[in-house]
């Protein structure tokens, strides 16, 4: 069988930077030239186009499916339903197989896949889908998660339930502590559904293999987890399904669940031809899970001087019809539900719930984002009531190294939150709004006033995020490193299954290899399943985990190299630096190429982080996280209080990353995370009514443009975590948490409005 064109190849990592430098991205030149092979760019001679028929209803029984007319359409090669799923009919994350590959007898969310089609042209596939007659008996959707909690048996969306996970946290005695509180604040908060809105649509190519298996080229975050779900559904042995990572156009959690994988493979196996699937934007809004919407009730008590005495919290997360990662998201919301503050008495009840609303799962921040908006809003309220202001109330209650989290876990690495707030406070403020240029006003060029109603506000936000997988999961990553002489120069080849989703992992892998092996030339192999599991590109974990695995593999290669060098030169005080074998006592002994000759040295290593424990199901106690990361934001906004328009003027952030591996990439992560937090604060929401999505397009679901995103000031701290490779601390997510509450606090400061729901809409600002 021929190979697809434009599959990912080996890329040479340019530049010479090791850990701590900012060399260019290995894939950068390809990306700016339009030559990087994304999943939707794949193409192969004789390929067919796959398409997915989806449910128009959030809840309905399927009485009949007639595929006859569709199948008879010229140019159509296959129309498949659940009856054609060759193996297991259900799949899911975390060994919870509850999601049908194609709907069986019932649909449980709008957009649930019902049938798939393969045709010569995407338009033929689309027309064929219109000719599939599905007889639906429409049912009243279950859409109120609190009603489900109250009556889980009656309001069962699917056989599993009800409530996906209930996780309590109990510390001290909240009822007794009420008597000690001199100040009490309480509030209810809501967070709307946010979409990852990665720009590269879900896409992939499935190619039938000669052994009856299938080769998949897809954009995903975690190949090995995909494969574990795909092979059983195809009725194939795991060895018959192979996967290569196609170029990923952003992920942010939205590619942790399967999209086209099984469908494209089924169509390819059925037709014996390569099948390409690529969603358009409308379909993408239904083709992946979103961030859980949340409904939260918070009550805090404090002494008159602002010292927190108790927190009484209820968090309800709507996961939609299938489990996805709702259990772990709920665990995060519970364990991080009161943030990085010391509170002696805590009661948290966190629920993940099944409904017929859009399915929700992983998104950057993963359960920590929703609670962060609530607990930071509470800190602002408390600071106001106690007369301390937003910074002092936070410093007074801030955790530091040695503090206990709500789970009882002791923070055993630096957590200088109070210092970070003080540094944030010291940053210069942007100048006042220059109203002479209309583009500076909220609303920009479409403003209709001269800025008479514009008021400035400043707000602060703090967030804490767990890094890597938690709650006892045996988190691992694998790397293979090969050192050999190519073209006269020692060259390292780094091979992992870790998904480069844009974050710059390929750059960091090359930097680690240069630092550990003392070579300049590094090549990154395409990520595929011919090497062991790398875990997911999520939870801010890949620099730590795959970075750690590459480091470990390089150390093994280096040990062998230096052992050979020791035999050759008769010295044992050797290191590999700048392409040379260097003795501490005798100086440069020779080149690495002299020691290697025509040999290659190769090593594969698995890396595991420190084990964590489960959360106690009754008390929520446990050392559940391996690492925690802090970010703090200050937001400055101009609000047109007459028109309800918000312009974020500037954001400033302080983040502790332990060790800067690559400043350029790191800053990009903090900027990008802050922008997604801005989106949640003031514009981004999948609007749902009666289980139906009302705005599945970039016309109606707005993400920040370059006009919405303000300049940022960054202050990046390096307090190393002694447990992590190079002392690093995962950095992808924390800024997504704290920017949202900072912006909303700034809008509150400008308007005096309570603003208990995000995204903040104009009517929240202007209505009486």
């Amino acid at each position, binding site marked *: 069988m021929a190979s697809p064109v*434009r599959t990912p190849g080996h890329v040479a990592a340019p530049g010479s930077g090791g850990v701590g430098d*900012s060399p*260019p*991205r290995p*894939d*950068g*030149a390809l*990306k*700016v*030239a*339009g*030559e*990087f092979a*994304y999943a*939707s*760019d794949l*193409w192969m001679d004789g390929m067919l186009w796959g398409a997915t028929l989806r449910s128009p209803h959030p809840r309905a029984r399927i009485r009949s499916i007639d595929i006859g007319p569709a199948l008879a359409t010229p140019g159509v090669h296959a129309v498949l339903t659940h009856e054609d799923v060759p193996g297991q009919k259900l799949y899911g994350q975390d060994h919870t197989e509850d999601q049908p590959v194609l709907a069986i007898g019932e649909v449980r969310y709008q957009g649930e896949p019902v049938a798939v089609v393969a045709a010569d*042209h995407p*338009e033929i596939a689309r027309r064929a889908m219109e000719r599939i007659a599905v007889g639906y008996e429409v049912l009243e959707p279950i859409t109120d998660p609190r009603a489900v909690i109250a009556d889980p048996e009656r309001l069962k969306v699917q056989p599993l339930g009800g409530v996906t996970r209930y996780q309590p946290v109990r510390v001290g005695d909240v009822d007794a502590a009420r008597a000690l509180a001199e100040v009490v604040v309480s509030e209810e908060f809501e967070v709307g559904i946010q979409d*990852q*809105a*990665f*720009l*590269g*649509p879900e896409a992939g190519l499935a190619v039938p293999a000669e052994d009856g298996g299938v080769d998949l080229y897809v954009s995903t975050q975690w190949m090995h987890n995909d494969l574990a779900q795909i092979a059983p559904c195809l009725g194939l042995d795991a060895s018959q399904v192979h996967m290569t990572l196609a*170029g*990923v*156009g*952003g992920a*942010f959690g939205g590619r942790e669940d399967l999209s086209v994988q099984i469908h494209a493979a089924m169509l390819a196996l059925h037709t014996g031809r390569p099948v390409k699937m*690529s969603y*358009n*934007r409308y379909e993408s809004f239904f083709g992946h899970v979103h961030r859980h919407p949340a409904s939260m009730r918070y009550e805090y008590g404090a002494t008159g001087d602002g010292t927190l005495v108790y927190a009484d919290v209820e968090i309800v997360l709507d996961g939609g019809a299938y489990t996805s990662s709702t259990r772990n998201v709920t665990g995060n919301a519970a364990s991080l539900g009161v943030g990085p503050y010391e509170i002696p008495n805590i009661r948290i009840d966190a629920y993940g719930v099944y409904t017929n609303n859009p399915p929700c799962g992983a998104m950057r921040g993963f359960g920590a984002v929703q609670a962060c908006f609530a607990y930071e809003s509470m800190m602002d309220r408390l600071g106001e009531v106690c007369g301390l202001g937003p910074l002092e109330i936070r410093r007074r209650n801030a955790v530091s190294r040695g503090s206990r989290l709500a789970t009882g876990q002791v923070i055993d690495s630096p957590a200088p939150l109070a210092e970070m707030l003080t540094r944030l406070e010291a940053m210069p403020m942007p100048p006042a709004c220059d109203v002479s*240029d209309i*583009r500076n006003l909220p609303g920009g*060029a479409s403003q209709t006033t001269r800025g008479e109603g514009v008021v400035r506000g400043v707000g602060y936000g703090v967030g804490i995020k767990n890094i890597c997988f938690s709650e006892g999961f045996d988190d691992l990553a694998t790397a293979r490193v090969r050192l050999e002489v190519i073209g006269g120069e020692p060259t390292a080849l780094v091979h992992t299954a870790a998904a480069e*989703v*844009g*974050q710059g992992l390929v750059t960091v892998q090359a930097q680690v290899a240069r630092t550990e092996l003392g070579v300049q030339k590094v090549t990154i192999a395409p990520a595929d399943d011919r090497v062991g599991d790398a875990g997911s590109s999520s939870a801010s974990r890949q620099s730590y985990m795959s970075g750690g695995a590459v480091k470990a593999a390089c150390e093994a290669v280096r040990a062998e190299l230096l052992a050979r060098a020791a035999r050759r030169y008769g010295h044992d005080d050797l290191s590999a630096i700048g392409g040379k074998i260097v003795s501490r006592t005798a100086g440069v002994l020779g080149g690495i190429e002299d020691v290697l000759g025509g040999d290659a040295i190769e090593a594969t290593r698995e890396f595991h982080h420190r084990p964590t424990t489960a959360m106690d199901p009754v008390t929520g106690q446990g050392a559940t996280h391996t690492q925690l990361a802090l970010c703090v934001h200050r937001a400055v906004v101009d609000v047109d209080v007459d028109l309800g328009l918000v312009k974020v003027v500037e954001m400033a952030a302080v983040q502790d990353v332990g060790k800067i591996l690559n400043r*350029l*990439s790191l*800053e*990009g992560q*903090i*900027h*990008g*995370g*802050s*922008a*997604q937090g801005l989106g949640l604060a003031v514009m981004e929401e999948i609007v749902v009514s009666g289980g139906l999505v009302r705005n599945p*397009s*970039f*016309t109606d679901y707005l*993400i*920040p*443009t*370059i*006009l919405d*995103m303000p300049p*940022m000031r960054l202050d990046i701290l390096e307090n190393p975590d002694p447990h992590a490779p190079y002392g690093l601390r995962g950095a992808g997510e924390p800024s997504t948490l704290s920017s949202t509450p900072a912006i909303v606090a700034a809008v509150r400061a400008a308007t005096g409005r309570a603003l208990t729901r995000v995204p903040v809409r104009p009517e929240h600002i202007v209505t009486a």
Partner: protein
Amino acid sequence: MRVNVTVNGSEETVDDVWEGESLLYMLRERMGLPGSKNACEQGECGSCTVYLDGVTACACLVAAGQAEGREVRTVEGLAEGQPGDERLDPVQQAFVEAGAVQCGFCTPGLVVQAHDLIERTPEPSDAEIREALAGNLCRCTGYEKILDAVRLAARRKAAPK
């Protein structure tokens, strides 16, 4: 139908184009030029921005047949030199160096739009950069490094050679 179109300086004839296809689809699926991206296919994201007779446009909003007899320049046509020995345009080079590329899916459209901006306005202010790029969505970078890249490219293009 048949479409005759000049793409990146080369006269091309494309057969069997269905009338409902966009210029974007024709470039990507029929002409082997997938550099223009398919992020939204509804004219909101700018990832498919190309020059059409010298003016930037979203290729997803142009019917393939509308390109008949016209000149299209895509991101693949910005680099100078012969195939195999291309030199990136200063805008492309600046995007790599400034860290303006993460996932890169928005990059081709932004590069074309920024290239057009600097052609028309050799020394753009930040407000002009923001205005010119307001139709190009990026989900990864928060735009800070994109501003850096455009400033850098403009400086380099303005510098005496």
